[in-house]
């Protein structure tokens, strides 16, 4: 059993990592916090908090506008953040990085803008049964607006996509395939490269929802060959309210604007308005400058710890949690896919997930209970809700032991 030497990487130290996250020192209800709700949002390292403060303390100004030193510095910091994100995703060009509020806004942007350009009545969009509501509802709205048709790749009992069904769903009318890289409710990591190749062979563009994957796996948009890739800063140790939509330049440059306003225009007259090239075309108004700087600091931090070392540590945690939870009589793990990120969804006999969440909280253990914004997944398993423990780089096996102890206590209360 792995106890202290958790990682295969000699340089990775979970205690050093924990030192970098001030919030982990706090107590909840008199117990040390065991934060296992990372799929909802991750905690922020000191480096991110410092970067945001540094921006406001030293060079707060609007970007791309005013002829003064502060604005120059703010613009430089903001555009450097764009370059950091381009490097992180291995985009060919920083102009392919659009700062948005998060994955939800990224997908709505594509649904609206790509939708307006490419999707009409009778055209088809393919998503999967394991999508988060943010990768379902924008497409349903688009279908209502345009008369396009939404098709769904089913999942099996383990929570793996039934990929054999995909060729049957693809045809000459398929305009876009939008799937998650990693399921927030089941933990499944999807074979996105294979999906992208299949969709491209059918002539469809592909959007990958990377909200969950970005903090756990190395992402290379060029190697994947996807057309769009969306990430949320707050799920990868960055601030809330900031995220990135990567879009292939060739597509972005042909797409109409999403929001109208300042910064995205070339010329505005009463006869009409012309728009700037990407990314400016898609960043109307004053952007979240501090958020972008904070997100870039999160990426720098992730890379300083090492993505491979983080993944190795999280794999160990996932194996440990899966083994320990499986040993509890009456506990059923929902989501047993072949490849998983560090997420374990489960139900406990006779204890409703919501009650379990409250009882665990009283012991300092923070988990999520509910439908995880993925109601179709819950329906697929004939459930209303599950409990979910989701791990991050700073979690330890001791915290999983606290989770297991808390579950046993809850089961005793309801026995």
């Amino acid at each position, binding site marked *: 059993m792995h106890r202290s030497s958790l990682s295969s990487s000699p340089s990775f130290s979970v205690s050093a990592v924990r030192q970098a996250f001030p919030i982990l020192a706090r107590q909840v209800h008199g117990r040390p916090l065991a934060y296992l709700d990372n799929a909802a949002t991750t905690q922020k390292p000191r480096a991110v908090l410092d970067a945001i403060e540094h921006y406001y303390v030293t060079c707060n100004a609007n970007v791309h506008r005013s002829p003064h030193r502060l604005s120059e510095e703010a613009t430089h910091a903001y555009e450097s953040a764009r370059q950091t994100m381009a490097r992180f995703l291995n985009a060919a060009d920083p102009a392919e990085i659009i700062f948005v509020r998060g994955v939800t806004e990224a997908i709505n942007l594509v649904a609206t803008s790509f939708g307006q350009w490419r999707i009409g009545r009778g055209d088809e969009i393919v998503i999967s049964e394991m999508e988060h509501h943010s990768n379902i509802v924008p497409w349903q709205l688009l279908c209502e607006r345009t008369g396009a048709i939404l098709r769904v790749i089913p999942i099996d009992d383990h929570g793996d996509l039934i990929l054999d069904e995909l060729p049957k769903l693809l045809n000459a009318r398929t305009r876009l395939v939008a799937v998650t890289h990693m399921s927030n409710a089941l933990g499944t990591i999807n074979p996105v490269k294979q999906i992208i190749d299949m969709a491209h062979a059918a002539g469809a563009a592909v959007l990958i929802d990377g909200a969950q994957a970005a903090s756990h796996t190395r992402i290379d948009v060029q190697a994947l060959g996807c057309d769009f890739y969306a990430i949320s800063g707050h799920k990868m140790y960055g601030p809330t309210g900031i995220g990135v939509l990567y879009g292939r330049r060739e597509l972005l440059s042909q797409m109409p604007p999403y929001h109208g306003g300042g910064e995205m225009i070339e010329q505005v007259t009463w006869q009409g308005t012309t728009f700037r090239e990407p990314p400016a075309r898609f960043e109307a108004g004053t952007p979240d400058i501090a958020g972008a700087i904070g997100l870039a600091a999160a990426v720098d931090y992730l890379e300083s710890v090492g993505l491979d070392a983080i993944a190795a540590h999280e794999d160990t945690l996932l194996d440990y949690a899966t083994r320990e939870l499986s040993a509890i009589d009456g506990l059923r793990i929902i989501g047993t896919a072949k490849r998983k990120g560090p997420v374990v969804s489960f139900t406990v006999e006779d204890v409703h997930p*919501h009650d379990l969440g409250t009882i665990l909280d009283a012991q300092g253990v923070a988990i999520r209970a509910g439908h995880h914004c993925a109601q179709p997944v819950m329906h697929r398993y004939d459930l209303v*809700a599950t409990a979910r423990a989701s791990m991050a780089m700073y979690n330890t096996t001791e915290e999983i032991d606290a989770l297991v102890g808390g579950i046993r206590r809850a089961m005793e209360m*309801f026995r």
Partner: protein
Amino acid sequence: MNSELDDLYREVIIDHSRHPRHFHVMEDADATAEGFNPFCGDRVTVYLKKQDDRLADISFQGKGCAICMASASIMTQTVRGRRTDDALRLFDWFHNLLTVDQPSTQPPDEQAEPLAVLAGVRQFPIRVKCATLAWHALKTAMTRGGGVASTE
């Protein structure tokens, strides 16, 4: 904290959640209403039979957490036979018990006393909706004759 937890999950509450009272569909109900909490997916349906302006009979069906089920069960016991305006006043008292800063903790009458075991919910603001879901459905059934009540 653990005493707060014990206050929340009193034995009476666990008993009601495992063996809810008046827990059945009422085929000949005069009014039914569903309560749905989109936050957690809990769902209860409340059935009423009215006689003049009294709740001659009440039952419920549904699926939810222990707090939701126990509260619905205790509700049926405490409002059965009441006049509808009296039942609405009791909901107000119960809602205040869980939400206002210095509530009146004395139940308004003897029949209402079992509600006091739910007072521990006030220490868990996120769970107040669980405890009031069935009450929202009851209110909808009484005042609108039926429909869907949401805690949102």
